[in-house]
């Protein structure tokens, strides 16, 4: 199936959300640390996995001040992509060519304050059923790698919900409104209030229609072409009508109800109405 409107919206919305949080909230921490070897059966046998203690490093070079990883130090010497190192930003690790499993690997990178995931899970699945590994951004030992693939918190889960078309203009133009939402799972109220406040102010923002091909990450979690600037991608797709953030409502799970949750997480919700004037099938 070729790319549809909904695919484009999901891609563009998630990329915009990530950039907005990182730039408006400076929601990242520059850090350095050791990487630890582990076996990953899903991984191509050409690589050995060396994991850092944090998942989801910042990929976006347009975030001022963030250290975007371009390689790791192996035995004190820098090794980059040209030396066979693949950086898996999502899983917070370096994939190093060869079979050596006892390398001394360190690295420097910016880690997001919140992992951002796209999901189809319902709110009750996300909040009540799922058991998350807490990957706190506050430094605390003992240091070890963080397991790949599983979702960790603090995190924000994005999903799109109801969509509807209303006739808007002669010639078949529709007023398309998509209800998107974000479920925020935070360690503490400071983080939660910060995220809700940032996105409360995102009303009237416009989001360029970035197609799936504009998504910056490869299947191994590294950057296509070695670098990614959201502002650059945004400019490349700024022609034509853009998605418009028409309405934003934020709310928090009340403390009384939060107390029955198994994990000590602070939960918030951001509900967006994203609008676009468009012709069907475009």
């Amino acid at each position: 199936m070729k790319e549809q409107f909904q695919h484009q919206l999901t891609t563009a919305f998630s990329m915009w959300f990530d950039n907005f949080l990182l730039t408006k909230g400076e929601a990242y921490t520059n850090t350095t640390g050791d990487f630890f070897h582990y076996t990953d059966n899903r991984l191509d046998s050409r690589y050995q996995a060396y994991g850092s203690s944090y998942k989801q490093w910042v990929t976006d070079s347009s975030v001022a001040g963030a250290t975007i990883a371009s390689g790791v130090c192996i035995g004190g010497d820098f090794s980059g992509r040209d030396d066979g190192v693949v950086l898996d930003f999502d899983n917070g690790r370096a994939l190093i060519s060869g079979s050596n499993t006892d390398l001394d690997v360190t690295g420097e990178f910016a880690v997001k304050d919140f992992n951002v995931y796209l999901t189809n899970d319902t709110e009750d699945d996300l909040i009540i059923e799922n058991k998350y590994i807490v990957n706190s951004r506050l430094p605390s030992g003992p240091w070890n790698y963080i397991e790949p693939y599983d979702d960790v918190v603090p995190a924000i889960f994005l999903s799109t919900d109801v969509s509807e078309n209303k006739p808007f203009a002669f010639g078949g133009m529709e007023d398309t409104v998509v209800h998107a939402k974000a479920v925020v799972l935070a360690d503490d109220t400071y983080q939660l209030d910060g995220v809700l406040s940032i996105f409360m102010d995102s009303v009237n923002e416009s989001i360029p229609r970035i197609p799936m091909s504009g998504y910056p990450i490869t299947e191994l979690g590294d950057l296509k072409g070695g670098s990614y600037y959201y502002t650059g991608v945004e400019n490349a797709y700024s022609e034509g009508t853009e998605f418009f953030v028409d309405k934003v409502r934020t709310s928090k799970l009340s403390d009384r109800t939060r107390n029955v949750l198994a994990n000590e997480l602070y939960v918030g919700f951001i509900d967006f109405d994203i609008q676009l004037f468009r012709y069907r099938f475009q």
Partner: protein
Amino acid sequence: MTFLPPDVKNALKRQAPKAMRRQMEKEAQDKFKKIKKEMIEEFLSNPITQEIMAGPSAPNISGTLSEKTNLFAFIGFDQGTEPIAPILNLLNGLTLQYDKEIKNKGLGISFRVDLPTPEDIFSVTPLPWATGRSWAEGIERGLSGLGYLLRKDGGRSGAAIQTRVKVRAGKFHNQPYISAFLRRYRKRFEDLT
């Protein structure tokens, strides 16, 4: 056809609205009261409204939950609360007020009805577990089973998770509620002549 002289026309335009105001206002008020009464009756007879008003042990007459639970429990209201009351207050508070004389398009006077918008209703219908969200809006757009699960005794101990199967089987089905209802009555009030 008889044509009125311009000075007579102008005098009519000036004087008629004042002379007719009392009579027209009375007629408009009568029609307004009738529509308002129908509006409130329709709202109260809506299955969603009735189910919520009936409290935690009501059957799922709205069909929103495939009869697995009912809306009052699913949304997570506390027993004894009256979630419908704020909406009813807004509807009961509806008035017809004199607005202005019509001079340019014919003769007469116009009235104003401050019908609440869907947003007005949504702002007085908070979800009990996330007060920034509206349960009335949720009826139209979708509601998660979170309120139900959070309200279950011993949610921490897993009792809530045991009930998940039941809730999932009774997945919530969105239904038109406030927005469509207000749109219909906005049209009726606009057509009030």
